[in-house]
């Protein structure tokens, strides 16, 4: 390995590192003045690593997130939906590509990132560990999950790292488009036959909980905040985003005729069935607008489930990683043929 290449061993958060105090002060002042940090600027080691971790995790999420919907491309029920779905999944892959480039510039090679992903060393967004067993799940993913992603990414677009911020802005324009098409799909199902409405409700029941978890654990349990908020790597807390999400989607779901349920799930991520054969769910009793605060109430999702799934024991963790790994391995000889190595081209030539 040549000098100047950062090995992944060095890419760790280390709060014991003593940075130059003058540089640190200037850096913080620049950020406080809403300045952007560029790839070639000086930055504290932990800023670089924190930013890389976030961008890499985000990139991983885009290409893993392409999988649950990708499964439905071959079964899309009309020409228009089929075209739109290929285009949508293609966009997600494009987001992954842009974000891997951003990450590469922070010091980790793309091949290393892909290898870490397929060997389980790094993670991707937890929401993609849930199954999409019907076409209605595709609609819910585009509406509810992309809706959550937009909220989160809008806050990230207020961050301090220039390349990431610009990528977020570009991605958000495309996400807005996915969200619209998701909304249209849900609306179509809800104005369709009884069977279609039921499909939509069942898919909604599967995705509501994971979407509440989308923004991460409650602030009191979240370890990530601290310096990353001061450096504006993160700009909003998990609970703030979750509240904004419920305020947006609880009334929207009800307006479409969907009920918000507390549902018990099987290990396979499907709604459990009671002895009498009906789904094990009740309406969330806390869902209502609190006139005094202007916010919607809701029951917290099952945080034990969250930690279990994020720890690797979710309905689809193995399947998602295995498919990415399959793709990585199937493609190895092609990358070797066109680039002379299993790796990938550097982002800046």
């Amino acid at each position, binding site marked *: 390995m040549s000098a100047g290449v950062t090995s992944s061993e060095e890419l760790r958060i280390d709060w014991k590192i003593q940075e130059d105090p003058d540089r640190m002060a200037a850096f913080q002042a620049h950020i406080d003045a809403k300045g952007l940090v560029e790839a070639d600027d000086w930055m504290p080691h932990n800023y670089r690593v924190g930013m890389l971790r976030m961008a890499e995790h985000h990139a991983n999420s885009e290409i893993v997130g392409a999988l649950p919907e990708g499964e439905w491309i071959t079964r899309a*029920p009309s*020409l228009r939906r089929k075209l739109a779905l290929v285009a949508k999944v293609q966009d997600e*892959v494009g987001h992954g590509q842009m974000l891997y480039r951003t990450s590469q510039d922070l010091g980790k090679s793309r091949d290393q990132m892909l290898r870490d992903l397929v060997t389980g060393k790094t993670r991707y967004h937890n929401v993609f560990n849930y199954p999409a067993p019907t076409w209605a799940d595709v609609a819910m993913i585009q509406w509810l999950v992309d809706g959550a992603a937009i909220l989160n990414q809008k806050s990230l677009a207020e961050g301090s790292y220039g390349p990431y911020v610009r990528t977020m802005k570009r991605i958000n324009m495309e996400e807005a488009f996915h969200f619209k098409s998701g909304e249209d799909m849900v609306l179509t199902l809800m104005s369709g*036959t009884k069977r279609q409405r039921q499909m939509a409700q069942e898919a909604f029941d599967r995705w509501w909980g994971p979407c509440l978890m989308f923004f991460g654990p409650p602030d009191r349990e979240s370890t990530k905040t601290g310096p990353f908020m001061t450096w504006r790597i993160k700009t909003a807390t998990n609970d703030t985003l979750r509240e904004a999400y419920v305020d947006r989607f609880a009334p929207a779901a009800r307006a479409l005729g969907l009920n918000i349920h507390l549902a018990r799930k099987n290990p396979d991520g499907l709604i459990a069935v009671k002895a009498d054969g009906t789904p094990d769910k009740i309406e969330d009793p806390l869902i209502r607008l609190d006139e005094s605060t202007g916010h919607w109430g809701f029951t917290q999702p099952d945080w034990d489930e969250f930690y279990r799934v994020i720890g690797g024991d979710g309905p689809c963790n193995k399947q998602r990683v295995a498919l990415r790994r399959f793709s990585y391995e199937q493609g190895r000889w092609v990358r070797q043929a066109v680039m002379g190595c299993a790796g990938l081209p550097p982002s800046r030539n």
Partner: protein
Amino acid sequence: MQELSDKLKAPLTDLLLSIADDKLMLGHGASDWTGLAPILEEDIAFSAISQEEIAHAAALYEVVGTMHGRSADAVAFGREPSAYRCAELTSLGDDFDWSRAIVRQLFCDHFDLLRFERLARSLLKSVAALSKRIGAEEATHVEHADVWLIRLGRGGDESKTRAQAALNALSGAAAMLFEPTDGVDVLEREGIYPAGEGSLFDRWQEDVGRVVAEAGLTLEVVPSPADAVGGRRGRHGESFTGLLDEMCEVYRVEPEAAW
């Protein structure tokens, strides 16, 4: 569309369906790679091609649908297997072997380009205009497939071996691309599908052969006997029916419903 005599309607339907069905199946197969292709940049490029194939199919289903008073979706998803006119090659799986995906695309793209060149000279103005537009996009698919085959052929031993194996594996099915649809001779005579210089098969062999040679590979395609009946006349194998069932799985839940 200009008035069509009944004598021409059925052959034209068959011809347009043979192209549209090929493209739907091919685009469908290519879309299977979306999210899983060997390189992210290529994932995006190949998805774009798959979208164009499906969009071309949709435009042709629209034309057929108008002729028969049906929606494009009903034509695309609502027929009996024996009413499809695609060649077997377009529905052959690739087992996520990139060389197979590329060779399948190479064979079909070159063939489509030739068909659209002819249709672009059709006396049916609307078909000619549509074919010009589609043909221009088709030319970019041909370029994409050519570049890839050459890369693979020259990309070292493993890659070359795989590319050659894919050519060998698909060459048999390639011959049946040329199976004529019923009544195509009438369409040729009436200037709806004007024949060009040399047979389609000869021109295709020349075009594809040039690329194969440049890639340092070999290809031998033996023409099918004139009386061989295949997909163009509705005789399909299991690869097709399996694919069709998968494609129509959701559509058939409520064929009348909007999705």
